[in-house]
């Protein structure tokens, strides 16, 4: 079965990828780490930041071991710089 994921990009990733939102269909089950590997292979910017990207699933931080579910919203969070 397939799982559809909404991937959100911000800041330098949004700028370098050229999109703020990607919709992906991947074979289930898929972990957060597998999703990052998939994106890193397709987008050099994601690859460049791979080590410092953290995931948020449905607006909460989650480890790369998280198992994603159809319809999840996954944000790629590079080190934040608010304040």
């Amino acid at each position, binding site marked *: 079965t397939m799982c559809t994921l909404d991937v959100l990009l911000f800041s330098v990733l949004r700028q370098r990828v050229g999109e703020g939102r990607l919709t992906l269909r991947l074979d289930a089950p898929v972990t957060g780490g597998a999703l990052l590997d998939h994106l890193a292979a397709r987008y050099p910017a994601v690859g460049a930041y791979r080590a410092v990207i*953290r995931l948020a699933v449905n607006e909460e931080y989650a480890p790369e071991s998280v198992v994603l579910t159809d319809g999840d919203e996954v944000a790629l969070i590079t080190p*934040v710089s*608010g*304040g």
Partner: protein
Amino acid sequence: MKKKESQIALTDEPLDVGASFAFLQTPAAGGIALFVGTTRRWTKERETVRLEYDCYRPMARKEMERLAGEAADRWPVERVVLLHRLGVVPVAEASVVVGVATPHRADAFEACRFLIDALKRQVPIWKREVYADGQTEWVEGDAPPAVRETDRV
């Protein structure tokens, strides 16, 4: 924290520090600590003309609520303010206001410092420097946000 005791917001408008102080005033407080981050013109030799803030709004809002709750668990917080301006913030204007009211001053200082440090590490907001020479640069924080284990693992 109860709604009436906290004011947490992301906004595109200028921040009003006087209004934040007024919200923090309460007969239960003896000390109110405020921190305001402002756009600095010079970083080493480089001149900034403005900052631009990007944000994952619904999540940032939740994280700010969570941090205010954590502060209230750790210190006797009577009132708390956590505001962040988004979009363009010109030089000398405020991008963030953190305010805490507690019965005694040491707690106000500690909780306020905790909140700004945690906000700068955890809340999904990013700034871009726009320099006088026209170049721009997204600022990357010193360390990735801390990720807690969740029951989805």
